[in-house]
């Protein structure tokens, strides 16, 4: 025994000596799991093509990430699954009618330009999936706004494509007239056209519930985001709608829920401070409604989140908390002292 003892080299490893089991990979896996209900709804409404697009998004994102890391001789990090999440999220913002190469281009922009060029995971300041989507919107406007009729509405509506409830909601001509098949209940279930991931509020909320339950994300951003949208639309309603009805339509149509639960909560591009997260979420909600009300384009979520992404750093700086033991009185006192010092210097 003592002979063996001599040969053992002991580490002076630093504390803590134990770590949680939940590493980056596990968190990303949880996000993927949380997206499953949404993917299922997409497949039910738009057929296997939806699944196909999701897979292409995930695979191509991993491909770009691996390629970039290989070309620039950096250690591969595809094991952390973050690229899979980005690819999947990007695909879910697409219409099911998108051709297969759309997610490939989108993920290239998302992974190579937005994520890796800024140093990889955790360093980017724009949400990669949303930036990829914005890039696609700018480059392929028509392809990105061609909405297939979901299975739930086939037979009810003629043709191959149709307008989304959000477009109907904000269309200037038929103010206050929502077709009967766009009832709030049907919006909630996802029996509507739209981007693959955003249609079913139910599926999104199940996924978000899972993420919050598993403490992958905190409740702060989704709740403040959705809360802000709800509050503003409740107060500033639209003629022809009951205020409550208008609010629910705004929440369940377009990307508000998906954005609030899956996009705005992206770690790298949202604040880490607790108060900051509330401010960030509320800001996203406010901008979303502003763009919807006053922008030329009904869908405000993407840009709202991207704009707030740019403010993340400032928000984190501005909404720090005080260390344990510091009371409000202490802060007032400190401020007063600082002021007095300034005065004295003058």
């Amino acid at each position, binding site marked *: 025994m003592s002979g063996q003892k001599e040969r053992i080299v002991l580490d002076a*490893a630093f*504390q803590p*000596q134990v770590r*949680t089991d939940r590493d980056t990979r596990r*968190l990303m896996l949880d996000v993927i799991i949380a997206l499953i209900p949404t993917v299922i709804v997409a497949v039910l409404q738009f057929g296997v093509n939806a699944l196909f697009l999701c897979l292409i998004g995930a695979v191509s994102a991993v491909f770009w990430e691996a390629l970039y890391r290989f070309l620039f001789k950096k250690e591969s990090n595809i094991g952390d699954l973050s690229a899979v999440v980005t690819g999947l999220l990007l695909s879910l913002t697409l219409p099911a009618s998108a051709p297969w190469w759309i997610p490939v281009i989108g993920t290239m922009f998302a992974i190579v330009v937005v994520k890796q060029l800024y140093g990889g995971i*955790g360093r980017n300041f724009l949400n990669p999936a949303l930036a990829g989507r914005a890039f696609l919107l700018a480059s392929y406007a028509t392809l990105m706004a061609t909405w297939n009729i979901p299975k739930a509405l086939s037979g009810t509506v003629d043709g191959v494509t149709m307008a989304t409830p959000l477009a109907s909601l904000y269309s200037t001509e038929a103010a206050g007239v929502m077709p009967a098949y766009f009832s709030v209940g049907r919006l909630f279930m996802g029996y509507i056209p739209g981007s693959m991931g955003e249609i079913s509020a139910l599926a999104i909320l199940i996924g978000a519930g899972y993420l919050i339950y598993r403490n992958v994300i905190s409740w702060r951003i989704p709740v403040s985001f959705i809360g802000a949208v709800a509050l503003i639309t409740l107060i500033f309603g639209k003629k022809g709608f009951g205020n409550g009805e208008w609010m629910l339509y705004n929440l369940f149509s377009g990307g508000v829920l998906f954005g609030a639960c899956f996009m705005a909560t992206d770690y790298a591009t949202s604040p880490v*401070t607790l108060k900051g997260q509330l401010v960030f979420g509320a800001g996203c909600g406010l901008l979303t409604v502003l763009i919807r009300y006053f922008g030329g384009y009904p869908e405000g979520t993407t840009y709202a989140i991207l704009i707030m992404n740019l403010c993340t750093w400032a928000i984190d700086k501005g909404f720090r908390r005080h260390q*344990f*033991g510091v009371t409000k009185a202490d802060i007032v006192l400190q401020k007063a002292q600082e002021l007095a010092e300034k005065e004295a210097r003058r």
Partner: protein
Amino acid sequence: MIHTFKGGVHPNYMKAPQVPISVVAPPAEVIIPMAQHIGAPCKPVVQVGDTVRMGQVVGDNPAPVSAPVHSSVSGKVVAVEPRPHPLGDTIMSVVIENDFRDTPCDDLKPLTEEEMKDPDVILKRMRDAGVVGMGGAMFPTHFKVRGGIGKVDKLIINGAECEPYLNGDHLTMLNFPEQLLKGIELVRIASHVEKAYYGIEVNKQDAIDLLNSLHPEQYGIEIVPEAVKYPQGGEKMQVFAVTGRRVKPGALPSGVGCNVVSTRTCYAVYQACYEGRPVIDRIVTVSGSAIGRSFNALTRVGTPLGYLAEQCGGFVKTPRKIVLGGPMMGICATNFDAPTIKGISGVLYFTEDEDKSVKDPHCIRCGKCIEVCPMNLEPIFMYMYYTKGDYENLEKYHVMDCFECGSCAYNCPARMPLTHAFKTAKLMLQAKAAKEKAAAEAKAAKEAQK
């Protein structure tokens, strides 16, 4: 009502209080380091060749912040020389060859009932028996308690035992409940306070029930059940959970009228006063994947770490590190020949199974470090400024308030070495402050000369 604090983590507890206390056979040679407390180290008071009895003082220092050390066996002094210390470095130690007779030393007599009502006698006895903070802080208890007299109106006994693996406090509660209550009463009397609050995490419900059944109120003690959360046992967290008072940054609990004393320390006070027995042994939880199971081993102070492992069945796997204390705040010993000391509540022999560090960690900005920091700090930014060597911002982000609990690093999915960085950063800042002070003083001296 269950009391707690904000933040914190729920590590995998790995506790084994069902394992009964086992007695580790004393080794053939014990090593008694002269530094087993914070403060002035002791000077040896024995020489090579002296015969010593079990419990005899072998090192002492009259400085106020100090506590004597005692021989944990009877036998002959074979060396007085620097030896490896478990917390690193080599420290002057007295090495005693065990004669396996355990001839007791009767320098300390049990106190009489009258004496146990006199705070000064109790305080003196705490010192003479070498009682230090046995939860791991190792601050001389007599000094801490004396310093609190007049300032402290609430005595808090820490029974959280929130670190994973450790069971010593729990087993002390279960096996020696009455002695423990009496020990707390003594500390309470020595502190000049009416009431002591004993905060215990509710994963020790059996101990809470047992202690409550013994009418703690007759000793002036109230049991406070606490939520199971790390670091519930941190001083500031204990004070907040029990009293709702918030210790100011950089201040001691006595600043808000509290003193926190650990379970095992109170038991040591009991032994010192009722039995006249100094601190020469304690329950040490021995565990970790290299051992493969858990032992709650009554171990003599000065037992070499390698010998301790052998006594606990030896290694089933090659150990990679020896953790002293709990795995959250414990630091590593790097020498099998280093002995256990008073403040070591656990010795964990870890293999690479417990090691989750990665080569090139990347922060993913998840904010999970912020969520759990019980001091309300922002570890992610502190780490950023640390890597940049930005002292000014490190201070602005209050790195000095970090008490190195390890919660942030524990919870970090990207495995950033946060706590370690803050430890280093604090040392750097302290060194810098000391340097600046020295420079300022030198300058002042020069000016004075002119």
